[in-house]
């Protein structure tokens, strides 16, 4: 039999058609998927010995205990010890690699410029006061007769476990206000009444939510003594300037409200400069301002700082991790290390009435080289050695022989008097907390509130909205926070504002639109989120420095299309 060309074609066609009914092509598809799984674009996680390291989170004064799972020396995940962590703390091991980090700055030039200006009218603004480095600033300023500035001069601490009924006027009590694990544990034992314009995360879980008019926090605070539940209140928490007086009147001072305690310091530090609230500084009196915003836990609008600077040729040097904050205004922005690549202690927490000392132990070597150390920079102005200040303070604590050290690896409590100074220092650097629960808490000073009052509701017909602020967020957050800001809208992104659908419709704004936020202070580019939970006539603003510069709480505002 002779095969024709037609037969060859028929055979080939039949083979192709028949192959479709065999597993071969389907297997090929699977194999293609398998091969492409491993193409070079997919990162390969590093492998190595798995170890645990312990530290304290330095992103906010809560200072949560952290267990880091490390591959070799590299942390690959963070978890809380004895409780969960907030999303910012859970992703803090990404911060050293953040693309928005400041990577270089003219450190030498800044030093020379400060030297040229002289030390007259010099001040340090510390946006995370209460740390050991804060004491270095205070000592240096005492030496050069400068000012040590902080957002508040007399911070208080609240004893939530001792409270039976808590009234929160706009405070984010259950959303990052204090140490999450402690607040969560205390929450079972007190009744929470939340008064604020929006049903926030705290209002949602409160026993009672009292909706108040946007910007009406002060008015509500003034009415508290006349409310039916006033006699039951253990403490009132919030930023309204009337609140310290209400707490004094309801007898909370010395029961649930105390002066925020600090761990002991060496005797030689006690001549340090006093803490001065920025608002107490005369206008146009600061010639050289050094700002430490490297681990800022609050933000002061620039116009309030600018008012304090001399009119002629002021010098502003900021120590920052990103260019988003005061670096926009400073002559020199110097890069700093970020948590968890730098060693330092954590400021006292707002919900801790006993002295504590917690060191944030570095988990990774600094990723950016050539960063400035703000403590060294400021100490050098006064000729002070700053390098061993943490150890000096630990020795001063050890010398008291008071309190216990809780080591996170084993949960063991060891009285300080049973430890040698070196062993005490070693345990603090292995992830531990020193606490002195027997120390009698001090009632707060009876001074006036240093909380900056909300902006007055000036009549401004063309500014129809009233601003509602949200919880402060760290200046540098992990790129993974896009899961919450972008892929789910679970949290209002720092550069966004939220409007009620009616207000958005009136302003012809769609969800996600680019817009301009205008206030009496200035304007700022924002993106819009439409949210029916925002009350009509209000605008909920994100916490970016740009927005906070122009829009304080209760400010009159409008949002227009960009």
């Amino acid at each position, binding site marked *: 039999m002779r095969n024709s060309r037609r037969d060859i074609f028929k055979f080939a066609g039949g083979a192709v058609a028949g192959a479709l009914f065999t597993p071969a092509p389907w297997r090929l598809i699977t194999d293609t998927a398998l091969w492409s799984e491993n193409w070079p674009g997919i990162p390969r996680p590093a492998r190595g010995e798995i170890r645990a390291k312990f530290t304290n989170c330095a992103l906010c004064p809560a200072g949560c205990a952290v267990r880091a799972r490390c591959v070799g020396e590299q942390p690959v995940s963070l978890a809380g010890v004895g409780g969960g962590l907030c999303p910012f703390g859970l992703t803090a091991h990404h911060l050293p690699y953040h693309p928005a980090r400041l990577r270089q700055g003219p450190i030498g030039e800044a030093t020379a410029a400060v030297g040229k200006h002289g030390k007259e009218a010099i001040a340090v603004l510390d946006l995370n006061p209460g740390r050991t480095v804060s004491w270095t600033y205070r000592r240096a300023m005492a030496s050069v007769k400068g000012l040590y500035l902080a957002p508040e001069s007399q911070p208080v601490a609240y004893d939530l476990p001792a409270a039976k009924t808590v009234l929160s006027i706009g405070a984010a009590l259950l959303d990052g206000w204090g140490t999450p694990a402690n607040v969560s544990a205390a929450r079972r034992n007190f009744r929470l009444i939340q008064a604020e314009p929006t049903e926030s995360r705290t209002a*949602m879980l409160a026993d009672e939510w009292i909706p108040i008019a946007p910007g009406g926090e002060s008015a509500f605070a003034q009415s508290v003594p006349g409310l039916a539940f006033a006699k039951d209140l253990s403490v009132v928490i919030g930023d309204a300037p009337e609140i310290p007086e209400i707490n004094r009147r309801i007898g909370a001072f010395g029961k649930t409200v105390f002066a925020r305690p600090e761990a002991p310091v060496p005797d030689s530090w006690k001549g340090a400069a006093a803490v001065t609230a920025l608002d107490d500084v005369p206008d146009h009196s600061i010639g050289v301002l050094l700002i430490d915003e490297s681990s800022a836990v609050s933000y002061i609008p620039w116009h309030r700082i600018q008012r304090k600077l001399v009119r002629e040729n002021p010098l502003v040097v900021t120590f920052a991790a990103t260019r988003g904050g005061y670096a926009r205004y400073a002559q020199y922005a110097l890069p700093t290390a970020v948590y968890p690549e730098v060693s330092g202690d954590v400021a006292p927490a707002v919900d801790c009435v006993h002295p504590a000392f917690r060191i944030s132990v570095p988990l990774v070597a600094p990723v950016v080289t050539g960063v400035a150390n703000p403590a060294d920079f400021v100490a050098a102005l006064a000729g002070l050695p700053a390098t061993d200040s943490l150890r000096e303070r630990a020795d001063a604590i050890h010398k008291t022989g008071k309190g216990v050290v809780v080591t996170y690896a084993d949960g063991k409590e060891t009285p300080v008097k049973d430890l040698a100074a070196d062993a005490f220092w070693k345990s603090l650097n292995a992830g531990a907390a020193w606490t002195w629960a027997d120390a009698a808490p001090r009632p707060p000073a009876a001074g006036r509130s240093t909380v900056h009052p909300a902006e007055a509701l000036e009549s401004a017909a063309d500014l129809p909205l009233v601003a509602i602020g949200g919880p402060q967020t760290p200046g540098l957050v992990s790129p993974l926070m896009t*899961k919450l800001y972008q892929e789910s809208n*679970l949290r209002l992104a720092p550069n966004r504002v939220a409007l009620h659908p009616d207000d958005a419709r009136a302003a012809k704004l769609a969800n996600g639109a680019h817009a301009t936020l205008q206030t009496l202070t200035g304007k700022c580019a924002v993106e819009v989120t439409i949210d029916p939970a925002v009350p009509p006539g209000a605008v909920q603003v994100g916490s970016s420095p740009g927005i906070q510069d122009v829009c304080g709480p209760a400010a009159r505002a409008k949002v227009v299309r960009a």
Partner: protein
Amino acid sequence: MRPSNNQTPAARYGMSIDVDRCNGCGSCMVACAVENNVPPAAAGATDRTGLTWIRVFRIDNGAEGADRRSAFVPVLCQHCGKDAPCVSVCPQQAVDVDPATGIVGQMPERCLGCRYCMAACPYHARYFNWWDPAWPAGMEKTLNPDVAPRMRGVVEKCNFCHGRWHAAKAKAVANGKAEIDPADYIPACVEACPNGAIQFGNLNDAATATAQSAHQPGSFRMLESLGTDPKIYYHSKKNWVHEISKAPRPGTAKETSRG
């Protein structure tokens, strides 16, 4: 031969989520992303195209003004115990139910990206990789070595942190035990929750807190009427929260939904 989708597993891992304790902080979402090497959002990613193996939705009671009340509901793969729709539709056998644990697993290396499973999932708890996974320079050092990053074009979903189950199993074997210690196997979202709103455990073991809370008054499951036997139980004392059990995705029945 494909194993039966209806076998009773030796263990039946599940969750009990107390909606009344969730404050929507998002810790579970980012902890999940860290544990499972889920990349940050691509520039164009939205709530429809993003990768969030567990997503917290905000729901409300539909009232306006002062009567409005909201709650947060974390939604993840419900790990259907019977007739999991995603298993039966997958042409690649890339989805299976582990007979030892009852966990519905996804094998991305087998996945074609046809997305039949996404269409079949009544809970919309599956996510498609629209972009190549990318981390900012240097951040890939922080990836979890126990979980391989997935490529563009495959479907992903919660697997109850299967890497942690393997680690717990290896530890049990090393200690000469047949069963894992429950303390060694806790998914990342459970560990991360600051409010203790999520419990995890073997639902077949009546002694576990998870099994007990799953059957307390006020507990419910999503779309129970479909008969898929989901292993995620929700609990709330608020009756209006129970409405989510009837919707395919929390809040989707109302115009006011977000997320």
